[in-house]
């Protein structure tokens, strides 16, 4: 089983990197870009677990390390 964890800053938390990216895109002529948010993707290989157990474990991983829930939120997708 694979798990794809997407971590991003919570809404309302200033994303300086996203701001810089949006401003660079505008500079390249993409004037329609209003804003950008930059996050990260963490791909996990966790063979041998059923989906329910895998999801519970990955959630625990997010809470304990992968995301800082003071500033970030996360989304988990499972794939075979």
């Amino acid at each position, binding site marked *: 089983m694979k798990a794809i964890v997407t971590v991003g800053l919570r809404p309302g*938390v*200033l994303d*300086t*990197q996203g701001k*810089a990216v949006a401003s660079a895109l505008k500079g390249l002529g993409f004037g329609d870009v209003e804003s950008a948010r930059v996050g990260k993707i963490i791909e996990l290989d966790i063979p041998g677990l059923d989906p329910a157990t895998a999801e519970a474990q990955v959630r625990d991983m997010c809470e304990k*390390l*992968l995301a800082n829930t*003071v*500033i970030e939120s996360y989304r988990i997708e499972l794939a075979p």
Partner: protein
Amino acid sequence: MKTAVIVFPGSNCDRDAADALARVTGARPHMVWHADTHLPDGVDLVVLPGGFSYGDYLRAGAMSARAPIMQAVRAHADRGGLVLGVCNGFQILTEAGLLPGALMRNAGMRFVCRPVRLAIANANTPFTRAYRDVRETTIPIAHADGRYYADDATLDQLEGDGQVVLRYLDNPNGSARDIAGIVNARGNVMGMMPHPERESDPTLGRLGGWPIFQSIAEAA
């Protein structure tokens, strides 16, 4: 007084911190490797030094906050022992949940390395008592991730309870409410972005950070 400095892979202010502690206490601190699981018996103060531990992987301080030694540091704090986190050490303390909030990329998106003027917002802590007769000091910062963030309720509570200890007079990084250093509710754990160990050697002529170490020595 017995002190310890935790050395993480990528710490780079550990020896400066150790020198300052040795000067103020008269004894060399124990240098404790991050993979150790115990602090030496009878340690009064633990310093988490500045640097770029684990290359700031994932988030600044994220990996170090889960290092084996941190369970012992947490137990030391729970017993009322003193803990000082400087720069990366402050980031580690917030990542470990020993201090509230988080330290994020500077609002100006650049690494900033220069002396900054600080207001002493609370001189009634074990880390700042020696500033009791002054209102401000100057200590250098050197960080890219120093913008203090916490939700409004947490910020209100920190301010209401006197947990904001140091404030920037010319906010260099966009920190919420100009916060440069805080203590926990019990007052025995402090995190600060400025580097007091870089302004604590008389041969360098500037001693803006020295009172932090004098305070600690007084506290023991």
